[in-house]
């Protein structure tokens, strides 16, 4: 494979440039990072054309986001990219935690087998983007406009008049919908004058990627107060192509210009990994964490996703992965609205659901950062107490916080959720709002079988089809929101969905989150839940 970072993206003068009047386009996505590209791919998979605008001319040199969570890989499977990301990347599920010079414990992120995708795959962001760009080219529905930059936005009818700067001058177009996926320094956010409130942490962190051949297992190693970085923390993570991510906490007063000099970074690397190692630098960066979010992610027909909507510290790999989940949540809703199968107000649920997810991510990453970089003597005393006890006491291991790693958000309390008539506390992992749990089904995987439409699934161990299923299937295929019906009899799947002893009926949304579940088959209830999940019946939120 050629070095994808050497590929340059050509500017091409678009037809919009030569129009007298700005031309309308249904969807303009600003930002060709992972989030913008996934929105474009998801919309393309549903038959929608989009334009993606980005000012860059090649992929970012640094690895940036590297940890892709199971849920992100499952989402990418819908565009046929789960396999290439997994095979190119480095699969890991074990994390080791060190305190001073002792290994205090290790954890396994996915102790359960029979899932198609692993807990995590590490892969440089430039590969993720590269595979998305290749897939976008194959669809013929995604038009990537490189070296173009949005410089102005103003309302125009229901849509937005967008002013775009290019290497040969400005042009304008009208976007019915704008997806702002233009990152932490979002131009769109600034153009709309929106506040981005939150916290900036004092501590500085040095992040570097090195290339070295080393017979080390693919595990996440995290050090608190190690001999090579006393009083602070460090992280080691493996990526593709023998590239390793190293992260050193530097403290609040570190001299940025000194720290970033390669010979100074090299001495830190040798102190961590040994004086005899041979390595080369791929990327060096220094940063402070921020925890900030927009108050609202939907502004009329401008929708914010990823870092443009929320920025968080990297411990827990929640930045990139939550951005992918934003895209996943947004695309099917926009699809239904564009096909007039749902009212525009369905997109308010994007704000409700992904705001709640952002708050959870911000809370988790803030707590991790507070544990990793304790402020003050008492915080440090508690932190060190937890670490000292963790070596022998399981209770303390649960409190060690080197990052709570990204899992799929559950949309508890969402206005789109329908009934849950399981007993209280029964099978909580698949409650309404939760993302589907994968499981093997007849030579395939459940998530493949679900696809990306509304699906009603009968989980049932018995061979005979439940009475009335065929009739329900006919009725649901004809509804305003068509629902496909599946029957799943496989043992593991039935176990995960609480159907070992009695059948269970689930409605899944196009993003494979559970909309509602029942113990008895009721076609009318399924149809009503599909209506609610597509925003066609307003339920007042309380």
């Amino acid at each position, binding site marked *: 494979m050629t070095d994808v970072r050497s590929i340059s993206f050509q500017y091409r003068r678009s037809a919009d440039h030569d129009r007298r009047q700005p031309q309308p386009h249904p969807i303009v996505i600003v930002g060709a990072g992972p989030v913008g590209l996934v929105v474009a791919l998801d919309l393309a998979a549903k038959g929608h054309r989009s334009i993606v605008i980005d000012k860059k001319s090649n992929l970012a040199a640094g690895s940036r986001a590297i940890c892709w969570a199971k849920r992100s890989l499952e989402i990418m499977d819908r565009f046929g990219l789960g396999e290439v990301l997994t095979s190119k990347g480095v699969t890991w599920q074990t994390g080791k935690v060190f305190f*001073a010079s*002792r290994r205090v414990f290790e954890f396994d992120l996915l102790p359960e087998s029979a899932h198609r995708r692993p807990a995590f795959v590490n892969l440089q962001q430039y590969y993720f983007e590269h595979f998305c760009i290749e897939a976008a080219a194959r669809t013929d529905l995604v038009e990537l406009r490189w070296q173009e930059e949005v410089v102005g936005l103003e309302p125009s009818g229901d849509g937005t008049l967008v002013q775009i700067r290019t290497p040969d001058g400005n042009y304008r177009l009208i976007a019915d919908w704008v997806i702002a996926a233009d990152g932490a320094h979002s131009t769109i956010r600034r153009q709309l004058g929106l506040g981005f409130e939150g916290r900036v942490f004092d501590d500085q962190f040095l992040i570097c990627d090195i290339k070295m051949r080393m017979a080390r297992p693919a595990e996440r190693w995290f050090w608190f107060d190690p001999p090579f970085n006393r009083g602070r923390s460090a992280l080691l993570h493996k990526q593709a192509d023998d590239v390793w991510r190293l992260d050193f906490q530097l403290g609040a007063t570190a001299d940025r210009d000194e720290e970033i000099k390669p010979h100074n970074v090299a001495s830190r690397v040798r102190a961590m990994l040994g004086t005899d190692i041979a390595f080369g630098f791929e990327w060096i960066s220094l940063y402070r964490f921020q925890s900030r979010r927009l108050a609202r992610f939907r502004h009329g027909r401008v929708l914010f996703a990823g870092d443009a909507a929320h920025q968080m510290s990297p411990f827990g790999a929640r930045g990139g992965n939550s951005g992918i989940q934003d895209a996943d949540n947004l695309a099917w809703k926009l699809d239904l609205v564009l096909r007039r199968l749902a009212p525009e107000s369905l997109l308010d649920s994007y704000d409700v659901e992904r705001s709640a997810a952002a708050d959870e991510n911000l809370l*988790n990453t803030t*707590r991790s950062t*507070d*544990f990793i970089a304790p402020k003050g*003597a*008492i*915080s440090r005393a*508690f932190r*060190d*107490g*937890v670490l*000292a*006890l963790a070596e022998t*006491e*399981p*209770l303390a*291991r*649960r*409190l060690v*916080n080197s990052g*709570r790693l990204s899992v799929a958000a559950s949309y508890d309390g969402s206005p789109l959720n329908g009934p849950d008539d399981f007993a209280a506390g029964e099978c909580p992992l698949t409650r309404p709002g939760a993302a589907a749990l994968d499981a093997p089904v007849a030579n395939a995987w459940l998530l493949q079988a679900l696809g990306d439409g509304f699906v009603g699934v009968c989980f049932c161990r018995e061979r005979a089809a439940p009475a009335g299923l065929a009739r329900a299937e006919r009725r649901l295929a004809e509804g305003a929101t068509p629902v496909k019906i599946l029957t799943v009899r496989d043992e593991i799947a039935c176990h995960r969905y609480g159907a070992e002893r009695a059948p269970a009926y689930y409605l899944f949304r196009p993003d494979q989150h559970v909309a509602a579940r029942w113990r008895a088959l009721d076609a009318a209830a399924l149809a009503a839940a599909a209506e609610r999940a597509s925003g066609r019946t307003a339920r007042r939120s309380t």
Partner: protein
Amino acid sequence: MPLKREPNLKDPDGLYAAILDAHADLSESESVALNARLVLLLANHIGEEAIVREALVLARQSIDETSRS
């Protein structure tokens, strides 16, 4: 019943944050005082003196080991 050494909290991260929040804006000596009061309150609530004694031994051992290393 011996001292529980397995995780026993529904929201451990939340409670940990609440403990640190209780210390917010306190001086170091005030924090030590807060911890003393907290231990007394919780010890009384637990009631079983053998359990509190077991926890005291465990905590003290951990401190002694940390000081030695």
